[in-house]
């Protein structure tokens, strides 16, 4: 026998179930508590950089919108700095939260985030990654939260040099990771859990 490695195992994931909004966005469900839901606003004042909005819908494998999902996003500010306790590279925009949470519209399932265009952040070897937002999707029927990334269609040069995007074998799936500019600062990013347009999900 060899010695034991005294590591713990990560708690097993379980589905968020149909009522994740009760726990994470109770005011959205009509439970008036906490003085408001967390993650509904990503700005606490005037922010630096280009203000944008991202809307989309999470679809199941039949093309039906999910209306019981919760989407969270996390991103750096316009200069590429995270409003995080472990950001050591500089001082992020004090009016930018970086984190957003959306329950989706009660009838259409459409989520919307009003945020800023993220700056680029480095890959571990120092190369710059293309500007992106990290997203996490939970819902009934999703056994373990799904991570993906929102890149921007209008960042062609940065995308062409991105360490992850250039490594993806099925280049024809990359559009599933690109937010499409629809109008001014408006972007569209739909998420397909399954099917011919299945979004690329990450194991990170």
């Amino acid at each position, binding site marked *: 026998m060899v010695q034991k490695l*005294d590591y*713990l*195992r*990560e708690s*097993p*994931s*379980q*589905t*968020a*179930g*149909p*009522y*994740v909004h*009760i*726990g*994470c966005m*109770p005011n959205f469900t*009509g*439970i008036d*508590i*906490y003085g408001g839901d967390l993650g509904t606003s990503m700005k606490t004042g005037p922010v630096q950089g280009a203000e944008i909005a991202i809307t989309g819908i999470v679809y*199941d*494998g*039949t093309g039906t919108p999910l209306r*019981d999902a919760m989407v*969270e996003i*996390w991103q*750096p500010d316009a*200069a*590429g700095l995270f*409003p*995080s306790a472990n*950001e*050591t*590279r*500089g001082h992020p925009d004090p009016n930018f*939260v*970086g984190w957003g949470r959306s329950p989706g519209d009660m009838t259409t399932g459409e989520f919307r985030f009003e945020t800023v265009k993220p700056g680029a*952040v*480095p890959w*571990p070897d*120092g190369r*710059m990654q293309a500007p992106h937002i*990290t997203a*996490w999707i939970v819902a*009934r*029927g*999703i*056994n*373990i939260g*799904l991570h993906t*990334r929102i890149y921007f269609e209008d960042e062609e040069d940065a995308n062409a040099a991105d360490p992850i995007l250039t490594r993806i074998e099925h280049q024809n799936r990359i559009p599933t990771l690109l937010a499409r500019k629809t109008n001014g600062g408006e972007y569209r990013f739909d998420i397909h*859990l399954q099917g011919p347009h*299945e*979004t*690329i*999900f*990450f*194991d*990170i």
Partner: protein
Amino acid sequence: MSLINTPPKTAGFVPRDRNWQPDALTPAYKTSIKRSPQSALLSFPTTLSEETSPVFGHGLLGALDNDLILNYAKSGESAIGPRIIVHGRVLDEMGRGVPGALVEFWQANAGGRYRHKKESYLAPLDPNFGGCGRTITGEDGSYEFRTIQPGPYPWPNGMNDWRPAHIHFSIFGHGFAQRLITQMYFEGDPHIPLCPIIGILKSQEAIDALIAPLDMHRTVPMDSRAFKFDIVLRGQRQTYFENRKEGM
């Protein structure tokens, strides 16, 4: 601003063990069939985007946020059901406490009914029970809250499937990579081996990891029973050797 081009100083998170965590497609839990990705996940080491997270200060908490018996009750009233305390620690895989983690929880009432307009179970609502609470872990990763023990309830999957009594947990640690949602079950519940959602777990050890034992040491005599539920998040590697960059 030239610092922005320097490599991250944070250490990466240990990869998620996909042989331990449930698969996306688990046909006995029917809703997973059309909500599960079919392509392989794209694996890569964590980057700054996953190694950082927002800060949730203790200042955001109200005095009753972790007391589900009172946080939705009318003045002088309280929620109906067996009074319990749920406590434990949020740890990482190295066994270190995770301080400052946001822990959110939600549950059905003692009759097995959720306060939600899409909920149709015939058990009545409790006017004094909202069913949600939250807290932030202390310096050692510990947390606790007070609630009533939720009831089991039927759900549309098979013709006669019942969920064991459970409390949902959402945990936000120090990196977006640690983001986790899970459920806590109660020691001795006969529905545990029958539940298709628990059945997605790959081993008895994984099931046991989600079952909270009765903890008589933390019981408040003549008041509330207690259950202990520890939660483990992905571990963050030590920085000393592997992330040391040349020339540093």
